[in-house]
């Protein structure tokens, strides 16, 4: 059976060339980078070259890159760490948006329980925050603005440069979760006034379990993981050398191929959207243009997402859904609710996220498989039956 991996927003296959770059650090160069002797020094050198590569990709300095275990840790460190420091200056207000990743929203919940006040900006029906609404939300005691670069479910890309400029104007720190954006859109922390930025390797064909936090020089969030002197004393733990090298390799590949690659992926994505939009009572979630190259997210009325995914899996297509059932909770995705979808419709969503490894043949196959599955499930759906009977009246 044909196997099509179309869930690259969840995670991506490790690229063989990235694994190749990692292999020496999984075999002969096993030294601890903190050690004096040559095998440790070699490991150290590799991590410092990696740091420079990562910095270059976002126009930062190497000393502004701090390695973490992934996007969640980066988000937690940035948000809780800045909050704790700013609280000492009496600033206990944080601004974010309603459809952030849970690593952000749950960090904010934790801070709320400690007495912080949180303002969540509306993302409107197109999945985009309005810069003027941020401008109005900033207060005297605002400690931090944290708004994701691109959304993981519906792929919408926020007007980060404008948001950064507003934060700068008010002298408020600006963090962005760029886990999904990294490697897919050009990022320049200087030009865009980004003070802190989270990334993770496994979303761009790097290894799982390694990410980074960019922290603008001069900013010192409270330490999340105390201990040894690694990461210039700001994040303890023996360095995951192979992971760091893999992150840098993946970032470098992504940035150097960005233009041509995203053009190709966008074209495939557009074909998918066009083709699947022909299904009756379907709708695209999130702005049509301001979205990640590989992201397609649509709702099909009358069916439920998990059933859709499982049947697609039976046909060899790996995709994802904002359906409640996939996550083990009963509420559908907070992202789809945030853009104003009613529960009934939010349950029937499908996210297809393409990467460079997908082909036009994959798109052809998906364009055949999805309508088939949707029809099958609708035929057995009492909800669809009702919709059709109401149509007739």
């Amino acid at each position, binding site marked *: 059976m044909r196997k099509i991996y179309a869930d690259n927003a969840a995670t991506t296959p490790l690229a063989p060339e990235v694994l190749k770059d990692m292999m020496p650090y999984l075999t002969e160069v096993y030294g601890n980078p903190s050690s004096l002797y040559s095998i440790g020094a070699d490991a150290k050198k590799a991590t410092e070259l990696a740091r420079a590569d990562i910095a270059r990709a976002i126009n930062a300095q190497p000393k502004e890159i701090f390695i973490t275990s992934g996007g969640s840790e980066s988000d937690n460190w940035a948000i809780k760490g800045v909050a704790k420091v700013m609280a000492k200056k009496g600033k206990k207000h944080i601004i974010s948006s309603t459809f952030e990743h849970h690593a952000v929203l749950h960090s904010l919940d934790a801070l709320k329980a400690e007495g912080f006040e949180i303002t969540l900006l509306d993302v409107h029906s197109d999945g985009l925050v309005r810069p003027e609404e941020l401008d109005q939300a900033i207060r005297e005691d605002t400690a931090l603005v944290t708004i994701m670069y691109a959304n993981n479910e519906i792929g919408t890309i926020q007007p980060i440069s404008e948001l950064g400029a507003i934060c700068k104007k008010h002298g408020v720190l600006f963090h962005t979760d760029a886990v999904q954006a990294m490697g897919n859109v050009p990022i320049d922390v200087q030009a865009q006034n980004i003070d802190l930025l989270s990334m993770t390797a496994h979303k761009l064909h790097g290894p799982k379990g390694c990410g980074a936090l960019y922290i603008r020089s001069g900013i010192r969030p409270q330490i999340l993981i105390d201990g040894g002197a690694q990461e210039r004393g700001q994040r303890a733990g023996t360095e995951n050398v192979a992971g760091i090298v893999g992150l840098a390799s993946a970032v470098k590949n992504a940035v150097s191929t960005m233009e041509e690659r995203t053009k190709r992926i966008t074209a495939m994505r557009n074909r998918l959207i066009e083709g699947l939009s022909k299904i009756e009572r379907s709708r695209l979630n999130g702005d049509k243009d301001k979205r990640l190259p590989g992201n397609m997210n649509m709702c099909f009325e*009358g*069916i*439920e*997402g*998990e*059933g859709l995914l*499982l*049947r697609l899996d*039976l046909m060899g297509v790996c995709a994802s859904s904002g*359906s*409640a*059932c*996939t996550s*083990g*909770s*009963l509420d*559908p995705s907070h992202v789809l609710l945030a853009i104003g979808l*009613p*529960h*009934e419709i939010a*349950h029937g969503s499908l996210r297809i996220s393409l990467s460079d490894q997908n082909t036009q043949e994959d798109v052809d196959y998906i364009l055949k498989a999805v309508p088939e599955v949707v029809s099958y499930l609708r*035929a*057995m*759906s*009492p*909800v*669809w*039956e009702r919709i059709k009977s109401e149509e007739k009246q």
Partner: protein
Amino acid sequence: MAYSEKVMDHFANPRNVGEIVDADGIGEVGNAKCGDIMKMYIKVTNGVITDVKFKTFGCGAAIATSSMATELIKDKSIDEALKLTNKAVMEALDGLPPVKVHCSVLAEQAIKAAVSDYYTKQGIDPTPIVGAIPECNHEDGSCGCDL
């Protein structure tokens, strides 16, 4: 969240899908807001369920439990059908992930709802026989979900 092979079999090849146009009883339970609705149709002859069909909007477990429940009550007497518990459905499917237990509850309720409807159509008050069927309302937990 791994489904058993039985669940996957009943999801991939659901038994008794469809509707019975001249059904003797029809029951619908669940709520689209919560993500699952089951509708069950029964044909009754001499107190025996001679045919049963279902339509389900819901996750893999919802479809599989519907399918299994219909199999378990087909050709059984109404009394036997009313004795079918969600646990029995789950066991027949070799278990369900904890978050999916409520699907088996829905299946049990769908049968009861169909039987209620049958009795009502026969002019018999179903409540003493079938009992009350709770409205599914996940939000206040009253649907009896095991969550």
